[in-house]
């Protein structure tokens, strides 16, 4: 069975193409990106700022229970065309990752189904590959930490 979310990353290119089909009408898919409380619900981040307009900006943040900032990201919003597309930048604060450019294209397949095509352009091929491999690296570390926790409980 083909995955609902498809990631295409060609060798030696500095872009990633993420495609996803949703069982949602296009206006609901688009709303999920433009209403702060909805963004918070699905992204699991706090939305500090979200201005959906040309030359607008946004900032997201995630804290642990103690209030330490785990993740903070921001970007400029370049273009917003309702139910069509969003063009914005994305940058993770306090990391060596440079800013990236994101093109989000929303397409209606029929009245109940829609599609999101997200093209992310990176500063360099190396930066793209680093971002692509980050969840892999975090994943094996997390698996390791989980293992440590289990072993710790056995003691």
């Amino acid at each position, binding site marked *: 069975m083909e995955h609902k979310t498809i990631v295409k990353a060609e060798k030696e290119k500095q872009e990633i193409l993420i495609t996803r089909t949703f069982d949602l009408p296009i206006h609901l898919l688009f*709303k999920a990106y433009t209403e702060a409380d909805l963004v918070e619900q699905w992204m699991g981040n706090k939305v500090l700022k979200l201005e959906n307009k040309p030359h607008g900006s946004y900032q997201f943040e995630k804290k642990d229970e103690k209030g330490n900032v785990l993740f903070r990201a921001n970007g400029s919003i370049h273009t917003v065309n309702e139910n069509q597309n969003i063009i914005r930048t994305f940058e993770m604060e306090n990391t060596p990752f440079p800013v990236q450019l994101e093109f989000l294209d929303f397409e209606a397949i029929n009245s109940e189904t829609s599609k999101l095509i997200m093209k992310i352009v990176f500063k360099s091929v190396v930066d793209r590959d680093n971002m692509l491999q980050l969840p892999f690296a*975090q994943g094996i570390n997390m698996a390791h930490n989980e293992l440590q926790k289990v072993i710790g409980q056995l003691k």
Partner: protein
Amino acid sequence: MKLRRDVFQAIADPTRRTIISLVALQALTPTAIAENFDYSRQTISKHIQILTECEILGQEQKGREIYYRLNPNGMKEIADFIEPFRKLWDDRFNKLESVMKNYKSEK
């Protein structure tokens, strides 16, 4: 199949896992990598060598220094490396879908 076994061998060790997560953020010299550990340079070099042999790390010459980073070209099983990335987005979009389905039914 050989490479697969090697990759598992490579990530079975906690020090090597830490090295992978360090170079995932940016290319580093062996000295910069070793600074993160209490082990000797030799021990760290050995781990770097294993990771390089398994084609997880790649080398890059910059002036006099050799930098190590995650190897994008030699990764024949690149799908294995990007699967966690795909999974991350798939989970995120699944959440979006369920949040918006609830939103629709609430209205």
